[in-house]
């Protein structure tokens, strides 16, 4: 199982991206996207934003579960109060672990946001942030 994760800001701008593979069942945590698949991943996530924009007025939950599909891939979404989109591209339906992953990353995002020197929609470049996201991925996915 490979995952592609992105955090999208209020202007549909990516503020953070990363990929990882599953650490479950002996997985080594390394993503194995085929070479020509990688650019597609960004498109797929971006395209899902249109759907999120509609779903968000119908569902009040933060975790929107799977919002879009493309071939064998699914896009799951977690939407924060401030309309920051946490999008995960994955090929297996594992709702609860994904929810837990999102919850952890959401918390890490808020810690970033609380810093007065960070502004909404800024790219997140902290290595510690990245390490926390990967740790959450390793823990749940």
């Amino acid at each position: 199982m490979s995952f592609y994760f992105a955090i999208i800001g209020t202007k549909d701008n990516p503020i953070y991206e990363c990929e990882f593979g599953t650490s479950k069942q002996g997985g080594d945590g390394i993503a194995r996207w085929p070479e020509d698949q990688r650019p597609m991943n960004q498109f797929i996530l971006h395209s899902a934003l249109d759907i999120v924009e509609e779903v968000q007025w119908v569902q009040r939950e933060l975790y929107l579960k799977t919002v879009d599909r493309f071939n064998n891939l699914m896009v799951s979404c977690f939407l924060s109060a401030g309309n920051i989109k946490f999008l995960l591209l994955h090929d297996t339906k594992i709702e609860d672990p994904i929810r837990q992953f999102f919850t952890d990353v959401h918390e890490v995002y808020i810690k970033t946001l609380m810093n007065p020197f960070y502004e909404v929609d800024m790219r997140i470049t902290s290595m510690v942030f990245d390490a926390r996201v990967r740790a959450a991925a390793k823990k749940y996915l």
Partner: protein
Amino acid sequence: MSSTKAARIGEEVWKTRIDKVNAELVTLTYGSIVAQLCKDFEGDYMEVNKQLDKMGYNIGLRLIEDFLAKTNTGRCANFRETAETISKIGFKVFLNITPTVTNWTSDNKQFSLIFDENPLADFVELPDDGRAQNELWYSNILCGVLRGALEMVQMQVDAHFASDVLRGNDTTEMRVTLIRMIDDELPPGDD
């Protein structure tokens, strides 16, 4: 006045005579001030430090009255007592912290305040621009506050940060030096 007595007074005043607000409101307000200054001065952190010190000084001039009214503290007998009053009562009734007084010089004119907690700096991480951590003293307003407040009680002091955990140091330490007592000296007149 002993350190313990000062601590008791500070605790009592904090509990009974201080109107309180949510701490995060203060933290976020201060954060907004510092961030705005950094923007306005376009990353000239030395200027930001100066501005924070100035703001603190203005606050200190007024804060002392508020402090004296709330705590009924009399005149401190010496600078050592002043230090205890600042740390156990002053910081306690305004910021609910009691920084540790330490590192006295032998002439008793200089001491350090070590801050284990600093509500002004909660949630804060300095910009990763290679300069902020070397130039910005995030809590510099506190130095100005001390300077202004003590000036109003006839003490001219220098206060500056020697280290700050936000800069990657192990402690947050403010160094306070008594430069001189300010006497209201009347010039010798021949009336």
